[in-house]
């Protein structure tokens, strides 16, 4: 009989939901009662909405339990592990019977995420057991020349997963062609899009696949040094990367004469980013590694020609590298079977916002947005109406409900005015104000603009001022034209991707939700009741208990009423700050 295994998901999202405490509780319990089961760790399987997750594998199969806190963990161990009596109420997915959550997993094709949630990322042997480092071994054992490795990647049709969508094989070819005494492979792990977390999950859940992808890139391009530029805000990813690098060095996958192959040298170091969104842009990232302010440089020369320390450099994103070992192992054509004509393979998306099943999903290119949101994501909570989905973060745009049968691939998404981006998919329902969303993103890009190009630095500020005016009821009809004019000027006059795409959220919302802008401007109304300055606050007479909290907290004394009597808001004094609404414990403040 095999020993029962209890595995706890300890990714950042799981830890945030309390998985660390659950792990501690179970290991204490195991210690105290001297229980006979194997306790293991893994990372995120992508079901963030069900965290903390605990998987029990026994002779009957696998049982994945969701929403486990310390008390439930004790119950689980007692009933299932000790008495072989699974707790049906907490089961999310099991081998034994169908559950609603199974749909979330079934629609997915896991290539980049193939090991996430399946292995303990801190143990290299578990990666090797699942075929890890097999691709490097294959190259060495079969003496595959670098040109053929590049050809395989080109055949796969893999395009850069960081957002640009540039063919990876072609990029490698350029870097390969440029002769130099030293070249660099850089992994862009500066995932700064608010609402995107797939790179973090990959680094936390399967760091070796990224290292292996980089080693293969190093071999193909002829580089001996690799640098991973990772956000300092990802402490767990940094920790696991450090462990993985050390283990890979010990096993001879990193260092000199890798796997005994003469002259196959490759080393990887990690550089911590210091918090600047613009460093996701490749030339800014290079400047940052060199210790300067992360400001983009003019291209050409492209990094493939003159990159880090003026040497030929190849930069790819985390997810791109994670796909590489699979492609070398199974062949480029196997990868190209998935996807559409021009976008091959799969893409990982971070589903968040107003959605039932938030988390990570990896789907084949060519699936419709609707299917991702409703079939995998389980639709919108609270029976609300789906309004739009935001793709591509601050550089992307909002795709409205009526275009939700758009398929997910680089070209179809770009045609809507959004971009594929790194894969953040934030779902919005009828209570989300699109003007406010545009304002939010512009505020972000304005803060993150490095200041090098005038149009980006000043233009985003001017656009933001107009948007603030509109959301405060001071908008004028010609503001929409002004926004468009500025948007195109910024796009045309910025050096890097940040400025060139910063106006996208405004342009797409203007295109698809012009009526909302008009309502804000001409009727001074916010249809989704988000923009505070455009709301009217009134006391709901039935719910008001006369507790006086609202009156006490009102900064302008606009609320009157005696204790235990219904209060009243004087509209001519009210500054619409929303304090009464936030303070009221009895739902007695109505918005209209």
């Amino acid at each position: 009989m095999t020993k029962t295994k209890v595995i706890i998901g300890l990714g950042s999202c799981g830890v945030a939901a309390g998985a660390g405490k659950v792990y501690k509780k179970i290991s204490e319990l195991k210690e105290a009662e001297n229980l006979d089961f194997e306790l293991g760790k893994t990372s995120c399987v992508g079901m963030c909405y069900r965290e903390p997750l605990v998987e029990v594998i026994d002779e009957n199969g696998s049982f994945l339990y969701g929403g486990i806190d310390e008390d439930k963990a004790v119950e689980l161990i007692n009933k299932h592990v000790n008495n072989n009596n699974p707790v049906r109420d907490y089961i999310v997915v099991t081998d034994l019977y169908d559950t609603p959550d199974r749909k979330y997993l079934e629609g997915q094709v896991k290539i980049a995420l193939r090991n996430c949630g399946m292995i303990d990322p801190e143990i290299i042997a578990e990666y090797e057991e699942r075929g890890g480092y097999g691709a490097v071994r294959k190259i060495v054992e079969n003496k595959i020349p670098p040109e053929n490795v590049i050809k395989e990647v080109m055949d796969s049709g893999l395009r850069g997963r960081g957002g640009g969508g540039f063919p990876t094989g072609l990029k490698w070819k350029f870097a390969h062609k440029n002769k130099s005494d030293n070249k660099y492979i850089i992994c862009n792990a500066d995932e700064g899009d608010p609402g995107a977390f797939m790179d973090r999950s990959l680094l936390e859940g399967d760091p070796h696949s990224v290292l292996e992808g980089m080693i293969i890139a190093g071999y193909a391009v002829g580089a001996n040094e690799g640098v991973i530029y990772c956000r300092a805000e990802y402490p767990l990813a940094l920790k696991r990367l450090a462990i993985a690098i050390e283990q890979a060095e010990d096993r001879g996958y990193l260092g000199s004469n890798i796997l005994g192959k003469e002259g196959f040298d490759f080393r990887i170091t990690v550089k911590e980013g210091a918090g600047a969104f613009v460093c996701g842009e490749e030339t800014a990232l290079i400047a940052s590694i060199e210790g300067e302010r992360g400001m983009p440089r003019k291209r050409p020369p492209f990094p493939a020609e003159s990159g880090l320390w003026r040497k030929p450099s190849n930069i790819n994103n985390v997810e791109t590298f994670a796909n590489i070992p699979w492609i070398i192992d199974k062949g480029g054509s196997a990868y190209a079977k998935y996807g559409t004509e021009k976008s091959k393979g799969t893409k990982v998306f971070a589903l968040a916002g107003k959605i039932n099943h938030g988390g990570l999903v990896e789907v084949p290119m060519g699936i419709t947005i609707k299917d991702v949101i409703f079939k995998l994501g389980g639709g919108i909570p609270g029976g609300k109406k789906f309004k739009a989905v935001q793709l591509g973060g601050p550089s992307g745009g909002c795709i409205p409900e009526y275009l939700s049968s758009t398929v997910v691939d680089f070209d179809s998404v770009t045609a809507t005015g959004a971009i594929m981006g790194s894969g953040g998919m934030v779902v919005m329902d009828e209570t989300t104000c699109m003007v406010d969303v545009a304002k939010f993103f512009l505020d972000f890009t304005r803060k993150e603009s490095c200041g090098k190009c005038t149009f980006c630095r000043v233009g985003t500020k001017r656009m933001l001022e107009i948007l603030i005016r509109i959301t405060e009821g001071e908008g004028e009809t010609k503001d929409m034209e002004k926004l468009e004019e500025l948007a195109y000027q910024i796009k045309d006059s910025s050096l890097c991707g940040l400025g060139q795409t910063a106006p996208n959220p405004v342009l797409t919302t203007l295109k698809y939700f012009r009526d909302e802008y008009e309502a804000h401007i001409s009727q001074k109304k916010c249809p989704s009741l988000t923009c505070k300055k455009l709301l009217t606050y009134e006391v709901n007479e039935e719910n008001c208990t006369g507790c006086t909290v609202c009156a006490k907290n009102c900064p302008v004394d606009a609320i009157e009423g005696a204790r235990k009597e219904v209060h009243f808001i004087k509209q001519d004094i009210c500054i619409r700050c929303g304090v009464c609404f936030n303070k009221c414990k009895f739902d007695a403040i109505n918005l209209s």
Partner: protein
Amino acid sequence: MRVKRISKKIPELPESPEKVDLSLLDPLIEKFSGKKGITIPVLQGAQEIFGFIPREVFIRLSEELNLELNELYGVATFYAQFRLSPVGKMIIKVCHGTACHVQNAGTITESLQESLKVEDGCTTEDGLFTLESVACLGCCSLAPVMMIGDETYGKLTGNEAVKIIKELKLKEKN
């Protein structure tokens, strides 16, 4: 743009309340001496030691590592991570990623500002809390989220956030 006006800021570079023990920098200087591309890791190391980067530290690093003072200062003010003044005992990070934004993260910051009587990015008078807005903490499915130390609090409302702070304050006093 993140860069603050230098002319205004320099005199404010805190003359640290306590004397800064510059010898703590020795291992850092030894580690990075003579290497290239070190500006960011050196500043990160210094901030790790002191919690922020005091004026004296800039000067010593510049002298010992042969880095221009203006370069060091330029880098420190470019990146969001670096602090030029001391922080509170606990840092409250309120997530303002997209997912949190559409789930009303604004209300949380506003409620905390009101309750703690500090502006965003500032430290309370008692030196207990520093309130910060951060871009995505990466637990979007728990939105809206705030993080204090290692503890993450999810699915918050303004009132709940204030309650958590009050409890922490109480705990601190006892």
